[in-house]
């Protein structure tokens, strides 16, 4: 059985995303993929999809979707008021939908982005091995763009499995901003020596504000200016960028590079967000405050391993 779903209202920015288009950056192809990879994987596990199945990524204002057959749906990441035919559904868990079911996103409670997994996955054709949408290059996803009302998306064949209930420990996987500044851990970056000696201290001295000029390519922040060392040029010869790079243009206001980042860039990178905190960073919305905290690479990898153990356990249960 394969089927479709219909987009009744698209929401602010709803795109098809998966684990990203890795392997093509040397041809200038951005990686893209789910901004919050943890929520993406957990949502897939909850509906019994193989890891890496394509989901919908919902941004700030959610969509209304109509289903045409029996499916499991899980919404992980940002918390919204979600209803199916008027009945409220819990976040970070799976629920069934049937023919004619309308799943409506209401008010956003916490976080910025939710991954919506549907059993069977979104079955748009892969481009260079990935179904991820990169809107600015119009690549992948559904016609290379954000969804609009009236779109009909192909769905894959769902696995034959009952709804999965995960142990409470997996709830800790989804990390969302709470009241006050959100702490994000950073490792000193590959151009740290191009900055004034106290730049890492300045970075950690006070919170930065996420500006409205933030998107899937990067988060532009506003706060204490980070200064280049006077003896060094304020730009570096272009080289590859990477997820979580905190790059600093000449105005001293950092930009955190995210999933849709260009493959290469020329601004020096003071610090890099720990991979384990990328999902949390993706949940920051314009106006939110972020407080950076130094961590060692060893601690960063330890956190990632702990996260991975929980995700693998969830995925193993989903596949059982």
């Amino acid at each position, binding site marked *: 059985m394969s089927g479709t779903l219909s987009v009744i209202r698209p929401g602010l920015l709803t795109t098809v995303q998966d684990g990203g288009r890795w392997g093509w950056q*040397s041809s200038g192809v951005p990686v893209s993929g789910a901004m919050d990879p943890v929520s993406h994987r957990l949502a897939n596990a909850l509906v019994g999809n193989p890891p890496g199945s394509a989901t919908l990524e919902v941004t700030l204002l959610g969509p209304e979707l109509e289903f045409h057959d029996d499916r499991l749906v899980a919404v992980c990441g940002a918390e919204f008021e979600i209803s199916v035919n008027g009945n409220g559904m819990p976040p970070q868990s799976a629920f069934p939908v049937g023919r004619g079911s309308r799943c409506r996103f209401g008010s956003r409670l916490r976080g910025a982005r939710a991954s919506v997994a549907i059993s069977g996955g979104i079955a748009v054709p892969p481009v260079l091995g990935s179904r991820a949408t990169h809107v600015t290059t119009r690549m992948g996803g559904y016609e290379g763009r954000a969804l609009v009302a009236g779109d009909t998306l192909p769905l894959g064949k769902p696995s034959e499995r009952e709804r999965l209930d995960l142990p409470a420990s997996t709830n800790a996987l989804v990390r969302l901003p709470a009241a006050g500044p959100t702490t994000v851990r950073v490792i000193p970056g*590959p151009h740290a020596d191009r900055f004034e000696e106290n730049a890492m201290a300045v970075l950690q001295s006070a919170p930065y504000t996420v500006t409205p000029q933030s998107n899937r390519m990067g988060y532009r922040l506003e706060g204490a200016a980070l200064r280049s060392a006077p003896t060094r040029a304020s730009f570096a010869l*272009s080289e*590859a960028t990477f*997820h979580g*790079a905190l790059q600093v243009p000449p105005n001293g206001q950092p930009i955190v590079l995210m999933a849709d980042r260009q*493959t*290469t860039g020329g601004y020096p990178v003071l610090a890099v967000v720990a*991979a384990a905190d990328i999902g949390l960073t993706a949940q920051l919305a314009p106006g939110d405050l972020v407080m950076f905290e130094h961590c060692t690479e060893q601690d960063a*990898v330890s956190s990632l391993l702990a996260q991975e153990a929980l995700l693998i356990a969830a995925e193993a249960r989903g596949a059982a």
Partner: protein
Amino acid sequence: MSGGATIVRAGDSAIVVRFEERIDPSINARALQLGKRVASWATTGVRDIVPAFHSVTVHYDPIRTNVQHLVEQLERAVVAEEPEGMADSGRSIEIPVCYGDDLGPDLSAVASWANMSATDVVAFHSARAYRVYMLGFLPGFSYLGTVDERIAVPRLATPRVHVPAGSVAIAGPQTGVYPLDTPGGWHLIGRTPLLMFDASRSRPSLLAAGDTVTFRPMNRTEYDRFSGLRDRGHGTC
């Protein structure tokens, strides 16, 4: 660190190997060569290998990669470079360009800046063979260098909102071809009917780092005929 190269950890998921920081064919060749060697190791967990002017970045999954081993391999590779690998293995590619008029709206401005005729700008631009140093910015966008300094016009003061795909442009010592419709700040001197990037091809990007590019002037009739063939699906380029 060794052999004039430094190995820098970039967070917990990338390693950058840098050579001397300047735009130079032999330095770039070392970076490309190292990138190929890293690819040949087929290390578990390595997600992407991205060469640039003077560096190679290895993206890896820290959960699935033996990072210590990868760093040691890189350290050994930069002290024992394979001399035969220093020779460029790139291809030579000719890109036909219709210069000027509506396809190259900045050609006359470049001529004024250079204090020469438009014909001379075209002659200078198409006389050289350019090295593809790296790709980036957009799928299939290559950084080619270096342009004759007499026509090395700086970027536009105000970038254009819309640059058509195929536009051939100059920015300082660099020249390149926009693969997609996009905003852009380079001076547009012509347009090629070639598709610089097509995800459905077995080799999506027409150019790869290490290739050599020459631009061949074509007239408008040729351009229109080529574009027409391409749009009817006969284009193989």
